[in-house]
């Protein structure tokens, strides 16, 4: 394809997205503020166009394959085939499967399949966005409008795209002082389109609001069968004073999936969040985590494990904004790259002028298992005052030859030794997850991902 033809294809891709968004807007009777928000989203992303590698934020990730591909929204009704396929995939979730007592919302190709509130206490809203927009849009109006207005329009192509397609997702509102013992579970399943259907796209808009002194754990899993698809997931979280969020995102989509996600968390004073991202699947995956420590004494922990093999590109992009004094942040991201897999870690910590007594630690470690795997690591610290304690470090390397020999000298084959060491490298992040069921699920997945089979570690 010539460069002109390529540019034309990308331009047509944006035009097709705009057309699709406008069509969606006409199908959804909505209050004027919502229509304005969608329309503003359309004009913003049309004007921006897909980010290119000339954009520093996208330097290592080329979106041209996504921009050139054509995707369509799924029809409103969930088909029997989708329902069956989704149930089959859900059954494979083991400890997180159908028997799990967690309150859960299940989407298939972006439409609600099932909502089971479990034993949620009253006063907690855990509902799908479409239902809230249809019955009580005033509950989300202020937050959605405010977040759209805050958007850095020069940057957020995918955020604007999310506004333009605003329709479905999860609304979570936790009232003051409420503590949810059981994690809330959100399952997003994508199934391959029928032979005559175009590849599907899903735009998910999540809005979580935690009032002061409340706490909850949210687990989001993205699961997909083979077949091309595009998921754009925009999650905005607001934490009130001393509120606590534990967020786990597990991304396990098929090898032809494009997945772009952004989690943005705003912290009031004393609020704390932890984000755990596990990325195993997908053709092109971008996970952005943006945390703003906009209250004194707020804190955040960002953990990520990304695994990529041939044909996969996983980009982890994090930004921690230390805007107020005495806030702390800890970040640990690990990448495991095999075959011709590509990985990116781009993490920035900004310590603003007034943010004295900031404590920030950032670490990125990558393990390269083959000669053709590649990872780009770009840790950044930008500090605008002296009274801080900040550190960052990045290492990329191969398995320790001494450790491999040590295991071989005890009888393990070279393959088993490498698998065990790779597992151990990644499992550090699994161990940071509080839920035993989630840990068990992740352990199985990490083992399944390894190049050689590894016996289940029944004994710890």
């Amino acid at each position, binding site marked *: 394809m010539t460069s002109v033809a390529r540019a034309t294809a990308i331009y047509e891709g944006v035009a097709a997205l705009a057309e699709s968004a406008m069509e969606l807007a006409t199908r959804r009777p909505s209050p004027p503020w919502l229509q304005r928000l969608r329309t503003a989203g359309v004009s913003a992303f049309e004007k921006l166009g897909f980010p290119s590698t000339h954009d520093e934020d996208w330097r290592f990730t080329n979106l041209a394959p996504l921009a050139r591909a054509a995707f369509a929204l799924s029809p409103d009704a969930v088909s029997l085939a989708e329902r069956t396929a989704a149930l089959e995939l859900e059954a494979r979730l083991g400890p997180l499967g159908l028997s799990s007592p967690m309150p859960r919302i299940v989407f298939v190709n972006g439409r609600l399949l099932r909502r089971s509130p479990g034993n949620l206490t009253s006063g907690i809203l855990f509902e799908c966005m479409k239902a809230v927009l249809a019955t009580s849009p005033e509950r989300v109006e202020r937050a959605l409008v405010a977040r759209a207005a805050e958007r850095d329009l020069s940057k957020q192509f995918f955020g604007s795209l999310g506004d333009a397609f605003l329709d479905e997702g999860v609304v979570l509102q936790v009232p003051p002082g409420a503590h949810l013992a059981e994690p809330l579970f959100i399952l997003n399943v994508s199934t391959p389109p029928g032979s005559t259907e175009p590849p599907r796209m899903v735009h998910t808009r999540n809005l979580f609001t935690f009032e002061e002194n409340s706490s909850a754990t949210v687990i989001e899993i993205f699961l997909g069968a083979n077949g091309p698809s595009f998921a754009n997931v925009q999650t905005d979280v607001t934490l009130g004073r001393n509120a606590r969020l534990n967020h786990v995102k597990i991304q396990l989509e098929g090898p032809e999936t494009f997945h772009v996600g952004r989690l943005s968390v705003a912290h009031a004073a004393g609020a704390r969040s932890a984000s755990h991202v596990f990325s195993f699947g997908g053709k092109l995956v971008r996970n952005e985590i943006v945390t703003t420590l906009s209250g004194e004494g707020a804190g955040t922990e960002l953990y990520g494990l990304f695994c990529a093999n041939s044909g996969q590109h996983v980009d982890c992009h994090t930004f921690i904004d230390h805007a107020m004094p005495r806030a702390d942040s800890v970040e640990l991201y690990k990448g495991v790259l095999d075959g011709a897999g590509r990985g990116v870690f781009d993490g920035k910590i900004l310590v603003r002028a007034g943010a004295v007594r900031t404590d920030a630690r950032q670490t990125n470690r990558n393990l390269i298992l083959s000669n053709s795997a590649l990872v780009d690591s770009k840790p950044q610290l930008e500090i605008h005052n002296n009274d801080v304690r900040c550190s960052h470090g990045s290492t990329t390397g191969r398995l320790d030859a001494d*450790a491999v020999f040590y*295991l*071989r*000298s*005890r*009888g*393990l*084959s070279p393959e088993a030794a490498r698998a065990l*060491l790779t597992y151990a490298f990644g499992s550090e992040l699994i161990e940071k997850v509080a839920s035993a069921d989630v840990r068990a699920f992740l352990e199985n997945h990490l083992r399944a991902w390894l190049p050689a089979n590894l016996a289940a570690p029944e004994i710890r």
Partner: protein
Amino acid sequence: MNLLEISNLHASIEEDGTEILKGIDLTICPGEVHALMGPNGSGKSTLAHVLSGRPGYVVTQGRALFQGKDLLAMPAEIRAREGVFLAFQYPVEIPGVSNTYFLRTAVNTVRKHRGQLELDAIDFLALLDEKAKLVEMEEALLNRSVNEGFSGGEKKRNEVLQMAVLDPKLAILDETDSGLDIDALRVAASGVNALRDGARGMLVITHYQRLLDYIIPDFVHVLSDGRIVKSGDKNLAKELEAKGYSWIEKEPPATVSAAAGAIAS
């Protein structure tokens, strides 16, 4: 049959071709404990590495037979499964792998190779519990990552524990005494002694005579510049301690080498 039969073994460092072992002859029969002493740089650890299959060395001449099989032709893991165990001078830390999980994986790999049934979790833990007592290993250390944050003594005890659990036919202890205080040394040595059963052969490599006060060898060999230059019984170690290695190095190697062969076989 001899357990280990090394003849005219020459080995070099792969990277730069430096010859370290310059013709080793040594035979170990079942049940025998041989001590290998020698100054720094004489090739003691290199011999341990070459016998265990550590990458980075090239054998240029000679051979080593383990129960009549060509040991040097086997990959490291097969040597381990056949029953050769190396207690490392510097045990490797393996973050993220629990000591117990690692040991069970190793034991079952070895058992499978020997045609034995794999141990289930309960049987394995019973075995581990029994062997841990030999080296006074606390349960907390069993549940921690392999050697991670262990003290010098804990690491060496962990090596002896692995040896006890894996039940090798030949154990090579590479400077197990280095970096240990006297109490830690005593515990490690009593663990090793408990594993002397009349069938297991041992090659105890040490720089100092001190360890041999606790692990009494049947034979003592002195290595100098890649050759065994003197062999004798446990009294040789004491003599060395009194006179120093310079005493050995002054003697012409050819005559003592012949004596070594005579005593060792």
